[in-house]
């Protein structure tokens, strides 16, 4: 998640000071990606260096320094809204790496790894569903705001992700069952292959092509 673009998007609405940006960012995203104020000021300093934000000439009545977007910053955030999020750079998902290593490491009880994860993910899904029930009641109430809608959408995204993970684990389990039923040789290391060619990045990128 780009904190930089998130802050630019908020500053496109109005000038804000650092602590205010942190509060707004967390309110819009339901506190799912908490920021510390130091992170906000570091990012603001980089954005200022790159000419995307600038400080207001005068501090507000409480002496706080407000930041506003420059034309370049506005151009950057406008471009963000109109271009898709880059999905080519596959994030290193610990679970994917763990399962991939589990199936290639002798002595690991892979079905147990799958089941333990499935139970944990389902527990997480249940907690998210409870939060979603509360959030959708709040959003539907007379006091519901656009921030409540944003929080609900974030929760639903996390629910879809959890569900997808469980479906993948079901698939892994089914495939393991099929594999267990047919005899096969263990993969031997290929001495001609360099370390980078067997890295997970290569495997995942290869699978995407």
């Amino acid at each position, binding site marked *: 998640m780009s904190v930089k673009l998130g802050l630019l998007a908020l500053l496109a609405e109005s000038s804000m000071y650092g602590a205010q940006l942190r509060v707004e960012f*967390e309110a819009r995203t*339901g*506190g*799912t990606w*908490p920021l510390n104020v130091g992170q906000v000021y570091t990012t603001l300093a980089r954005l200022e260096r790159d000419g995307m934000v600038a400080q207001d000439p005068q501090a507000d009545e409480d002496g706080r320094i407000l930041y506003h977007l420059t034309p370049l910053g506005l151009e950057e955030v406008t471009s963000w809204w109109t271009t898709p999020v880059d999905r080519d750079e596959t994030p290193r998902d610990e679970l994917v790496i763990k399962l991939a290593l589990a199936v290639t490491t002798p002595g690991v009880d892979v079905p147990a790894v799958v*089941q*333990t994860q*499935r*139970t944990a*993910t*389902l*527990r997480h*899904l*249940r*907690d*998210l*569903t*409870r*939060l979603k*029930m*509360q959030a959708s009641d709040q959003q539907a109430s007379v006091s519901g705001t656009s921030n409540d809608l944003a*929080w609900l959408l974030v929760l639903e995204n996390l*629910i879809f992700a*959890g*569900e997808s993970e*469980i*479906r993948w684990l*079901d698939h892994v*389990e*089914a495939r393991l069952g099929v594999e267990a039923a047919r005899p096969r040789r263990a993969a031997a290391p290929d001495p001609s292959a360099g370390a980078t060619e067997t890295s997970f990045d290569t495997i995942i990128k290869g699978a995407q092509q």
Partner: protein
Amino acid sequence: MNEPILRMVDVTRTHGDGETQVHALRGVSLDVHPGELVAVMGPSGSGKSTLLNLAGGLDKATSGSVFIEGDEIGSLNANQLASMRRRRVGFVFQDFNLIPSLTASENVSLPLELDGVSVREGRRAAHLVLELVGVLELADRYPDKMSGGQQQRVAIARALVGDRRLVMADEPTGALDSQTGEGVLRVLRERCDAGAAGLLVTHEARHAAWADRVVFLRDGVVVDTTGSPAAAEDLLVGSGH
């Protein structure tokens, strides 16, 4: 915690014998308390439906015991069992199973009327429970004039009518779109929050997530359970919201 409404103790169900013998369920124990919704998940053939049928008295265990509100259903004769099912257990199926020639209210009151309750009393009870599940305005409507989601809400009302506090649901959202299915799960959840005990069989993790606990079955054996949820306050703290 209160006494469980449903208690299964070391329940086994075997079909056939000799070489063709199949163990559909092997030594399953499970308690469902008032206010609790428990989901059962597992691959096809893992014993989910067998468990539901045994828990609801639609099938008899080969060994072990099933108690509903303290009564062991294995010790009941056919009449007693039928009566127990009508009075204490409600079923919700994937295809609703409403009788097309009866209105919503008549469908809901039917189990009570079969049990000797007067038509007037039955309709009164039906209206009460239709209101609880939010479809009182459909009381005089026939199933073919209702949407899938409405039919399933009526089916849940039928499962709860009278003082039945144990609800069994077998893939209750199967034919519904995701938004409508969610509405049905919400009703089920709310009825459990109000004191009913629910047992939900599903293969969808998203639906099982509405339950307090999820029990995983494989080859007729409980292989894992999620345990009970944290208190709502802890969830809120955990999320930072």
